[in-house]
């Protein structure tokens, strides 16, 4: 069999396994980080340092009584978590985890597949992910679930817009829809975060919203909706929902790392590459350099996972109407402004400087016009 095919399948299986494993251990890290943030120690009785906690949870969920409420729509009730899980797992296919591997003279991407619409693929899959929640919440035939589902739907649609807009700025700069190409365009330390800080902030906020994480965890906000869309779910079906949420978190972190933090790029990547090649040989050196790149990529991803968890245990939750206000009145205009600024900056000879100047102008405009705007609003309210 073709060596390329074999390596490729190994890579794909590895990616699959890695995203599952990371998702499983995200639950553990969530608990530990939450505990540390709250001056606690977190799970420490399941295995050394509680390291077996995810397995215990999984084992328990698998052997819990499987239950479908009498009034529920049986098939959809089962379909809900399945779709969630499916869509969550699909999106990791296009993520470039590293540069190329040199196997017998063939360069193989460390990536499931490099389609030229990679980022759209992620985007599309994520937008389908909401069906899992929607169907599950509706099928449970429970008020709280339905509320959770409806909130999830509207929230996801609203934030997808701003997300897409801020994404466009990145695509504009890197001139490709392929994530691999986007990563390559940030070679070394030429990361997009430095060009588009505003876009980055918007994207992170939207990513939080798309993953239904605090402060946007309205679909399952437990103090309001008991458990939101998965109120009626127990056993492994619940497990799948929780699991898919964590996979989504991993994917979003990875996407943020690739889009704004240069993916597997790191300062001095060329120097290291050359040095390694000199030390060993072309093949080994290249592969080791790729390995370092993969490591860097995962470091960045883990950092963002940490940020996700960190945010969750810090911030209060939005209210539904505020969430919508934020999406439509703040995020969307800002992302359009960001797009315009980036586009304009691309036309100038010094895009980097120009984009910062543009952002400065935007900020100044906000400071100046905000009070005027408020006054008018106040007048309207008084009338």
């Amino acid at each position, binding site marked *: 069999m073709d060596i390329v095919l074999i390596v490729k399948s190994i890579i794909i299986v590895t990616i699959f396994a890695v995203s599952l494993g990371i998702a499983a251990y995200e639950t553990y890290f969530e608990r530990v980080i939450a505990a540390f943030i709250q001056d606690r120690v977190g799970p420490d009785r399941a295995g050394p340092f509680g390291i077996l906690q995810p397995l215990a949870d999984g084992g328990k969920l698998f052997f819990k009584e499987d239950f479908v409420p009498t009034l529920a729509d049986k098939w*959809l009730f089962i379909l809900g978590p399945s779709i969630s899980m499916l869509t969550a797992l699909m999106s990791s296919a296009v993520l470039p985890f590293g540069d190329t591997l040199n196997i017998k003279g063939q360069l193989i991407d460390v990536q499931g597949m490099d389609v*030229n619409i990679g980022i*759209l693929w992620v985007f*599309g899959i994520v*937008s389908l992910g909401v069906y899992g929640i929607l*169907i599950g919440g509706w099928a449970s035939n429970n008020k709280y679930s339905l509320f959770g589902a409806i909130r999830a739907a509207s929230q996801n*649609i609203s934030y997808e817009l701003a997300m897409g807009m801020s994404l466009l700025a990145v695509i504009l700069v890197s001139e490709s829809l392929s994530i691999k190409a986007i990563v390559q365009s940030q070679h070394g330390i030429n990361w997009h975060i430095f060009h588009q800080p505003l876009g980055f902030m918007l994207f992170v906020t939207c990513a939080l919203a798309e993953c239904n994480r605090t402060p946007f965890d309205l679909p399952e906000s437990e103090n309001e909706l008991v458990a939101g869309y998965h109120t009626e779910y127990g056993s492994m079906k619940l497990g799948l929902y929780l699991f898919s949420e964590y996979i989504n978190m991993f994917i979003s972190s990875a996407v943020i790392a690739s889009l704004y933090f240069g993916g597997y790029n790191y300062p001095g990547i060329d120097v290291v590459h050359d040095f390694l090649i000199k030390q060993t040989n072309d093949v080994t050196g290249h592969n080791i350099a790729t390995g370092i790149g993969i490591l860097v990529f995962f470091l960045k991803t883990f950092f963002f996972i940490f940020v996700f968890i960190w945010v969750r245990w810090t911030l209060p939750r939005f209210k539904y109407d505020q969430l919508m206000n934020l999406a439509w009145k703040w995020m969307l205009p800002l992302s359009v402004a960001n797009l315009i600024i980036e586009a304009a900056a691309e036309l100038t000879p010094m895009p980097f400087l120009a984009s910062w100047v543009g952002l400065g102008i935007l900020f100044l405009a906000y400071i100046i016009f905000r009070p005027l705007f408020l006054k008018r609003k106040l007048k309207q309210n008084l009338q």
Partner: protein
Amino acid sequence: MQYLELLKNMSLVQWAFYFLSVTTLFGALGAVMSKNTIHSVLYLVLTFFSISGIYIMLNAQFLAAVNIIVYAGAIMVLFVFAIMFLHLKGDHHGFDNTIFVSALTAVGILGVILTLAIKKAEHFRVDVNNFNPKIGLIENLGDVLYKKYLLPFELVSILFLIAMVGAVLLAKKEK
């Protein structure tokens, strides 16, 4: 027997095509015949999904992605959203004879038109030798849209803007 032979000789691409066609039709039929509104919307989503698959087979990846994002991901979600809110669950009609007859008529007419159209279209078969495999890709699409059809494109966008403003006006509550 002949058909079996045919099946055996079908390539992977053909298999995929027929699979997608079947799911498309299945979804479409489900959407029409399902008694539960939510179910029929979900069938419709399945249809969109498989149509996107067919787009991919036509090498129009961008179109496929956009189809999923816009139709399956946004519009259909809105549909489901609205239906859930409006409690249309109990509000379904049986599949009675008049509807069946009229549907059959419509399908029949559509079938005739399509057959004719396809017959005519056969004259424009793609030249296999000079076919540009990148024709459906985003670069070409952009090229065509922003160069050849710039004016219509912009006009369409203005049209959308007008529609949007109209929708907002309609949706806004009277004070």
